[in-house]
């Protein structure tokens, strides 16, 4: 028979292992659920199926597309190949304007229509979200 101390230690190790496995499982599961993917308008066109998941869309705000009313902002995000129509109500960052880069977060209604719940702030004129830069450079 093993001594009491060894038994205790074994129990301790099993407990730690179990909790490590549990936490890894939890982390991975909630990563899968809570990760937000970034797409350009062209990526959206190529999507096989639309998922009911939050995504980010980045590109340029198309010239002459921005319209504002008392409770809504409408505009078009373009990557100069494809474009997508965005409807949004909420806080608009200061440097958000036509011809500038933008990242919108929200849900796709269909391949041409996006309902944003958040528009991401940029903090100076030279700063462009790296995702937008990459998306624009690709095209």
């Amino acid at each position, binding site marked *: 028979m093993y001594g009491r101390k060894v038994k205790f230690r074994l129990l301790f190790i099993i407990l730690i292992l179990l909790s490590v496995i549990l936490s890894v499982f939890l982390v991975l599961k909630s*990563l899968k*659920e*809570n990760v937000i993917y*970034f797409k350009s308008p062209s990526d959206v066109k190529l999507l096989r199926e639309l998922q009911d998941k939050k995504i980010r869309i980045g590109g340029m705000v198309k010239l002459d597309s*921005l319209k504002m009313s*008392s409770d809504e902002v409408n505009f078009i995000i373009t990557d100069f190949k494809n474009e997508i129509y965005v409807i949004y109500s909420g806080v608009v960052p200061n440097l958000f304007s*036509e011809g500038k880069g933008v990242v919108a977060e929200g849900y796709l209604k269909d391949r041409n229509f996006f309902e944003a719940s958040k528009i991401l*702030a940029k*903090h*100076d004129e030279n700063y462009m979200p790296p995702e937008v830069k990459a998306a624009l450079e690709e095209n």
Partner: protein
Amino acid sequence: MLYSLIGYYALILGLSISFLIFFFSIKNFRNNEILDNKIINFSFLQLFLVIVSFFGLVLSFVYSDFSNETVFNNSHTTKPLFYKISGTWGNHEGSLLLWLLVLTLFIFLFLIKSKNLLKKYRILTALFQQIIIIGFFIFLLSSSNPFNYIFPIPNEGLGLNPILQDPALAIHPPILYLGYVGSSIIFSSVLAATVLKYVSKTWAIHIKNWVLTSWIFLTLGILLGSIWAYYELGWGGFWFWDPVENVSLMPWFALTTLLHCVLVLEKRSTLQSWVIILSITTFTLSMCGTFLVRSGILNSVHTFANDPERGLFILTFLFILIFISLFIFFVFHKNKKQNSISFSLLSKETSILVNNWFMMYFLSVVLVGTLYPIFLQVISSEQISVGPPFYHKLLVPFLIPFLIFMAIGPRLKWIKSELDEKKYLIIIFILSILISYLILKNLSANFLINTVLIGSAFYLFFITTKDFFSKKHKSISQNLSHFGFSLLILSILFNNIFSREVITNLKVGEKFINEKFQIEFIDIKKYEEQNFISFKGFFLITEQGIKDKFIPELRVYNQPNIITSEADIKTTFWTDKFITMNTLQNEEYFNIRYQVKPFMLWIWISVLIISLGGIISLFSRKSE
């Protein structure tokens, strides 16, 4: 011109002093019983030279010397003097110079403060610290020299990003760096102590002050950054799980855990491996923070430098340091057979260990959330971001047992203990749950978890409050910090649950009305300031018959040409009212966001209380 030159040559001289210190340290290591005074003197000289170099840069900024590339990139003649000075460390090169300054300052302080400790230990610590210092010298001189010369000399600089022109952010980096870099001395000394098998009670008593010091600065640094984000970025929150924020939170987790382990080491001479590993982790995470923020890998507010070479250097340097420390740990650290060190399941040691594991879990969650997007981008070029829900889901439930352990742990005794006053503890727990149930009765979303969470926070709150008046309880500092933590969790939760907001677009003269608020946009006026034009909006907000005037502001900075919005915040004891105004190009509409945020002030106060606990502990120790 002159100041830049002086600064540059002071840096080169400083680097050469490092080699002198190396030489004398190795010579002194075997020969004498006492520490060679030359080492202390040279450390002082090195500190002095780095200070000269730093002031060289400060003066270049003050006199707007645009022949200096750093000044040209980050300053402007019309900028107020205060921000010219703070601009010195508001950029990559300057902030690294500040790192170096703190590194040399700390090793000098360490050498004069450790007079009655082992000579070999002091020398080795100085040596390890010199390795870090040399690394930073080379990094500065090779890839991010703050004194680069440009010709022809420009007439005007590019200016400092306006969101950084702010009093809180002017002092945020130095305070945070004192915390970050403070961990370097812990790192060096733990390596030295491991090599000499000196990780002991005496060592713990001495290193504890260093751990406390950098913990206090790190806490305050994070607080300042958070306050700044709250009023400057106009999102109305204080923590966004932005990678840059996470990067400062991770060393804080490690350092807090380390602080508790050092306590155990001091009282019970156990948990050596924890102390060593955590000291290494804390410093590595601080370095990682610098690497992630400064290399431009993170997609964030703070990333202005985008130089792959810099990132590569820090990464290589980091790997070398990790390699050295792991090597030392595995080769020199042997867990002694300690028969006397066992402790029972119900003891202070166990409760601290349990909380250590919780802290490590919190740390790993934040680490995964911060690094996973980078990792995925490298291996699959898929771009993702990990938002607040990820963190909330994984961290919040585990706060419940964490808070309960925090309440009960300090009441236990070392080695073996009985939990006295069991009934009393249970009654308080039931009471806390009851109170939180009554407060949240009308809440529908996430009712159960919120009730239990607030209940456990109340539990910690009541128990620590009671312990202030109990004579049995000795450690005021510990109790104060735990009390502050319960207050922090309570304020954050109430703030989250009871915040209300209205977002609307208004033209001048229009009104917004709903059941609770009436927002009237009265007028907008233009003012000229020193380096920006200000547009002030005048709002009248009526809420439950109470009228408030708000004047949020839009600032159009001339150099660089940036618009920022300044929130108008009315802070009272219980609630903050917060309004921001944003503009759209060529539109008559202004985007208005009005928020009522209860307990905002208490979040800041509770963090201050937490660090006050640390400060009291630091000074009561010194008087002993």
